[in-house]
């Protein structure tokens, strides 16, 4: 009896160990496997399934959709898939992740030549955020936006105030709003990754609208982050608190809390990094938007943004299946299919040509005034460690834990640390060897 029990146990254990690894069985018919984070918009998953089914009906190629984890877990999931030898033909990954980590680690295919026939399917400048070192590493497939400030027109009208264009005007109306019992401006300060957003807007002006150039200089070692422009930008963000525009309410408020405070008319203004609300979301009052005010004379207000949600091809994708993969990419970029999926995002910018934009009074202002002068979010250019350092030092300076000078030095130290520890190089594409390029070339 003992022997039988022992044999059974040993067999079960052996079988479970053998089959735990799983086997990559060859599919019966051609397949395109799409891996990505869990879909975030209502109806998006169903839209993908509909497009996949239509594609299969047209071409006979099956599309397998695998959604897992959050958007910022995609690099980790992609890495795991690569190590496990999983089949992945397309991956949904944002421009921020592609720029900050995924492209330079060699996990993505250089799709410059593959996408050449489809470049005209995208809105003007939409591929820029996916182009690094002159090569294309993905393409946008979602919404695009720029950061700005929402305001409650009803509260403004009742108080007899106008949207501000300068910092001094912003301080003045904030006092009026505060005296009337409202929170002047609400911001999602509890979500630490958003602190850098306020810095971008100030930095654009303290550098006289050269934020990208100065950032490139910083990352290539030509300038220090503790330069006067960076210090001035940090101090400008802090002055939002000192001058009563932002209050302590923003420090403990996340994205949901921020929207709730604004929609429940507890706050008169809401600063966001992208298009968060439509007029239809605010039935109780009229919604307006205005640009970041002028804080430096001679500079203009410059928004940050770009098409964040995108698609790429992993470098470990099956080369023999690339034809099928590109057929599906072409299918996705057809206006009717793009509209089906991207429509779920309530698009405000024509990322893929031919999609229908939402009907909202503020969308026109966004597209005509703000989008043309929008530059990419700096945290798409900074390495993650630098972005984390910026996000940590701003609340610390606001809380008085450190000065702006100490804070900017800490950011500089963060860059030097990753250069020392990981050999970080901003222009990584210049140091890649032939074998590195071979690994990512279709």
């Amino acid at each position, binding site marked *: 009896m003992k022997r039988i029990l022992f044999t059974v146990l040993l067999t079960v254990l052996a079988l479970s160990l053998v089959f735990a690894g799983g086997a990559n069985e060859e599919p019966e018919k051609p397949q395109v496997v799409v891996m990505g984070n869990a879909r975030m918009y209502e109806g998006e998953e169903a839209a993908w399934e509909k497009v996949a089914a239509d594609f299969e009906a047209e071409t006979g190629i099956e599309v397998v959709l695998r959604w897992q984890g959050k958007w910022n877990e995609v690099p980790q999931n992609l890495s795991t898939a690569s190590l496990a030898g999983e089949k992945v033909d397309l991956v949904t990954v944002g421009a921020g992740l592609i720029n900050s980590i995924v492209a330079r*680690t060699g996990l993505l295919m250089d799709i410059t030549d593959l996408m050449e026939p489809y470049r005209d399917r995208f809105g003007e400048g939409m591929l820029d955020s996916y182009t690094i070192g002159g090569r294309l590493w993905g393409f946008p497939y979602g919404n695009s936006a720029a950061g700005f400030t929402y305001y409650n027109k009803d509260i403004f009208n009742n108080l007899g105030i106008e949207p501000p264009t300068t910092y001094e005007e912003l301080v003045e109306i904030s006092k009026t709003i505060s005296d009337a019992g409202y929170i002047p401006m609400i911001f999602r300060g509890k979500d630490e990754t958003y602190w850098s957003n306020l810095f971008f807007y100030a930095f654009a002006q303290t550098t006289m609208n050269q934020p990208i150039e100065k950032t490139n200089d910083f990352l290539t070692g030509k300038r220090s982050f503790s330069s006067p422009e960076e210090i001035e930008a940090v101090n400008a963000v802090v002055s939002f608190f000192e001058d009563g525009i932002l209050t302590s309410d923003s420090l*403990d408020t*996340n994205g949901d*809390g921020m929207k709730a405070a604004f929609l429940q008319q507890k706050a008169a203004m809401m600063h966001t990094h992208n298009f968060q609300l439509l007029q239809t979301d605010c039935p109780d009052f009229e919604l307006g938007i205005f640009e970041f005010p002028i804080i430096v004379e001679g500079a203009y207000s410059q928004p940050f943004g770009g098409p964040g949600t995108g698609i790429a091809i992993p470098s470990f994708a099956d080369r023999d299946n690339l034809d099928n993969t590109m057929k599906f990419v072409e299918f996705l970029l057809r206006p009717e299919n793009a509209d089906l999926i991207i429509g779920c995002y309530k698009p405000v910018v024509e990322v893929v040509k031919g999609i229908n934009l939402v009907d909202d009074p503020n969308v026109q202002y966004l597209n005509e005034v703000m989008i043309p002068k929008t530059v990419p979010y700096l945290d798409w250019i900074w390495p993650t460690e630098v972005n984390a350092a910026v996000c940590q030092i701003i609340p*610390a300076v606001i809380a008085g834990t450190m000065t702006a000078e100490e804070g900017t030095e800490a950011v500089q130290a963060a860059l030097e640390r990753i250069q020392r520890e990981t*050999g970080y190089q901003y222009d990584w594409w210049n140091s890649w060897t032939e074998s590195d390029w071979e690994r990512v070339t279709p």
Partner: protein
Amino acid sequence: MTIGKTKRLSSSRLFGYWMCLPALILFTIFVIYPLFKGFYISLNQWDGFSSMKWNGLKNYGFVFEDPVFWQALKNTFIYAIVSPVLKNVVGLIVALIFVQPIFGSYFFRVCTYIPYTFSYVIVGVLFGWIYNPTFGLLNNFLTAIGAEELIRGWLSDPDIALFSVIMVDVWKCMGFHGVLFMAGLNAIPQDLYEAADIDGAGTLKKFWHITLPQLNSTLVTGFLLAMTGAFVNNYDVVNVMTGGGPFHSTEVAIYTIMTTAFRYSNMGKANAMSTILVIFVAIVGFIQLKVMTRDENYE
């Protein structure tokens, strides 16, 4: 006869070892192997994507130079000391109340225990709203009772944010520790109290000289469980509530390791941090085990 008996014994003992084998294999695969693999990775520069580059002990040097890791380690120790103490003190108070024959005590016991069944993510989100300065119950309650001077940025003030997070953990686990103490209290022989009554002992004296010594083994178990959990089980609540901020004031070691590994893709350094943490936890665990498992604790 003797030989046959010895054979049977050794065969029986062998069977015992064989029965342990599956568990041993799994333990080796999922604990021992990763431990050594982690140490090996800590000697390399690796982003988790490309091939590893031998780095020797450099990653350990980077960790020792990293002020964030030491801040996180300090926070971990504060967490691992404050949280078990509070969990046990509050759990004991809860148990002392609920062992009394009060109306609806079963209902209140269940209410107190239920939070323990929630995940840290749920509890973290819930308390995120309770601590919210605009809508939060806590600040609104303080306003309602006229205690505005006590209002704080519970998660944004670096001086108190860690304690705000610890309180959430205490609230979640107090029911569990309460149940442990209730079992302990019910096991204390009533004649000890009767004898004390005859001797004229008051409530406080009975508590100090009978209840507490009799609960010693429960205290040891409760403290051991809470402290082990506090070292390695606080990533999710910190991640959900503060993300380690403001300015690393709530960052615990596990959070720093996770961030270094999966956000910064610095696997070598993250594994060096893990190795250092394992050594620290092993030392603390050894001391704790030595001190708390002395025979007199259970007499």
